């Protein structure tokens, strides 16, 4: 009985991992940002919040990153496809101007890719 229970728990854990980390995020709702609204992204505890940001294509958008995590992981935020990056000061607002030309999804992350987010350009 115990054997069955533990095996079942193990399988449920695997299914839960797959669902929570890989399937569910795709259904997630997106944070939206208008062309002239200014958005603040909090960098804390290993996550950007919000971590999905909608911006218009072919327009300059200013993102404000507020870093509260002093660990070196959080020091840089990189938008590799846009070739934009910034060094974030602890407890400081850092302005980052993005100007994506084409619609699509552009990931942004820290150097180690532990902090991750997506810029959705429409």
């Amino acid at each position, binding site marked *: 009985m115990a*054997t069955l229970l*533990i*095996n079942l728990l*193990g399988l449920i*854990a*695997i299914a839960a*991992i*797959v669902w*929570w*980390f*890989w399937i*569910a*995020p795709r259904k*997630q709702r997106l944070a939206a940002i208008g062309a002239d609204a200014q958005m603040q992204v909090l960098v*804390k*505890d*290993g*996550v950007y*919040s919000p*971590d999905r940001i909608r911006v218009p294509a072919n327009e*300059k958008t*200013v993102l404000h990153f507020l870093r509260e995590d*002093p*660990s*070196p992981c959080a*020091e*840089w935020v*990189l938008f*590799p*496809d*846009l*070739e*934009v*990056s*910034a*060094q974030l*000061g*602890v407890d*400081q*607002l850092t*302005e*980052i*101007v*993005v*100007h994506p030309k084409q619609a699509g999804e552009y990931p942004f992350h820290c*150097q*180690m*890719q*532990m*902090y*991750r987010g997506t810029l959705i350009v429409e």
Partner: protein
Amino acid sequence: MGITKDGAAANKTAAASQTFQLHGVSCAGCVRKIEKALEGVTGVDEARVNLADKTLVIQGSAETAACVRAVESAGYGAEPVQASARVLREQQREEEQRHYHHLLWRAAIALGLGIPLMVWGLVTGEMGVNNTFQQLAWGSVGLVTLAVLVFCGGHFYTGAWQAFRHHSATMDTLVALGTGTAWLFSMLVVLLPQVLPESARHVYFEASAMIIGLINLGQALEVRARGRTGAAVEKLLQLQDSSARVLRDGAELDIPIEQVRVGDKLRVRPGEKISVDGRVVDGSSLVDESMLTGEPVPVKKSAGDLLTAGTLNKNGSLLFAAEKVGADTRLAQIIQMVKNAQSSRVPIARLADTISAIFVPAVMIIAVVAALVWFNWGPDPKVAHMLVVLTSVLIIACPCALGLATPMSVMVGVGKGAENGVLVRNGKALQQATDLNALLVDKTGTLTEGAPRLTDIESRGNAGALLQKLASLESHSEHPLAEAIVTAAKQKPLSLSPVTDFEAITAHGVKGNVDGTTILLGNSKLMQREGVAIDEWQQKSEVLSRQGKTAMYAAVDGELAGVIAVADPIREDAAAAVQRLKQLGLRIEMLTGDNAATANAVAKQLGIEHVHAELLPEDKEKIVVAQQKEGAKVGMAGDGINDAPALARADVGFAIGAGTDVAIESADITLMRSSLHGVADAVELSRATLRNIKQNLFGAFIYNTLGIPIAAGVLYPITGMLLSPVIAGAAMAFSSVTVVTNANRLRLFKPTRVAAKQVEHTNNSIGEGDS
């Protein structure tokens, strides 16, 4: 090109806004009062107070001091926030130092608990819970461990929870799950030993504490090692001065660099750094630009010359007008470019990127599967084995090493490039520069100085007198060769005479009257047309042509007076650089608009076998395309005059030296120094960086692909032992330190030099120039 545009945009935004920290602000009423007070200040377009972080952001061109006065008049305090990169970096460093000490403390406390517990376990072997006394004793140890876990590793648990809520999993998740499982299992043993078989009643508090301690220690070492990877940018930032001496109302005034405006007159004394970009108004001095260009010889600057922020004034006092300040200076843009490149993506890392995106959940699944395998098919004690395997797999897996492998090497490599005057646009350029097999080099301005000089003058009578007449005549011509003759005369110095009846005869030469004599200067066709015999000097003229010089006949009153030659001198280090590039396995081809004879002569002196002469500007791009179609990886080096399209088209475009802005825009790699050696430096550096990246990636892949199965117990049948979670923790903590340390090895990179040959050639070309 994305960088420059987006980067520049970011800079402009920053330059137009000022941020102040406010004091004494507590309510919405204060906000309105301050904003109202600022409305009256000239130059304020918009003032916005953020009550949450007590800051004030002012848009517009208002003076900092005026804004502070306005806020103070409203009854509050304001102090400007120094947002310059240098200050930010200093704050960052202090923060890093604090964080480093924090991590060390946490490590010391956690290890202070973990090590005695581990020693106790090893010496006495009594880690089991079999009676009430042991239950009480281990229960207390468990509570102390919990306190240590929360105090020293609290950030792992909050981080893991935050990430979990956002459907993401990080290294924190692995650490939190691994140590959490070990602690929970041990607590279960303490509280309800009866539910477990006797052989499995073993506590693992020491493992939780040790793992947290070791990972904190690893992170502390990593913070240290990482600090050094940014050393190059640090050096550039240190070039920025913090204050400038401005001339205001006749008095010299020291003001913070942030307050210098375009048009301000600045004074720089001997031994001082130049604070902003500008143009000399008065005075002359030698300026050391080596920190930006790598060019060791100081440059002479006098009225009208450009000065670059960050360079060092050597011996004279200069007065100059600020042309570019703040984020617009060349130095600031170099720093921005280096920073952007340091964080850009390298194509080789794509696989690592894909893996790190799914890494943590995948490891969690592997851990569960391994645990189930041990539970169902492993030997007794099954539950204990299951727990050890689960914890070890979670702890040993290191997404950081994988994630850090590329960025750390790129960071050091690009920074090292900047130190050597090589500015790499992005990681892609860095990678492509490693496998170039052909390099097309534009002759003018790259292999040669780009400014023709008078090299030879042979005459029947007084050479000086002939030069004076020819220079007078040529001062009316707009031909580039004419300028060389006029400059040579002015340097002697000879004063020019008035010219009458000047006539420029296309594709032949010039004609005119100077001091009552008729002067002709041009090629053999001109002499033929005017009926002047050239037999006497023809041979000399041919010799000069074969040396790559443009020879011209000079006639006075219908009689041949001599031959004069003008050439664009070969850069003194070009031959050595070509030699180095050949040794790097590159096929060098020369491109030029010049005639084939001159081009071949230059190519021969430099040891270049392939020459494309008499090209029109658009032909250069066509040659790049043609070679690419043949499967070659083509690099193109030029100064951007006429070759910007070819630079952009090539796999890697190298903009040489003082090149034009267009060239720097279209190039993948910008060389601050006007030397082809920069291309060789860039190729060597990119190869060294790629090698380093490959070592790091290989190490990180091997570490994880070996570590995870070992932690899962594949060696158990051979060794009869499972990997201790503590050893897994140590391995994990030090794997990322290893990656960062290996990347730091790149800091030792030094470009090779062919020193002897360079000196020898320098002497030759100086001799040529003076003849």
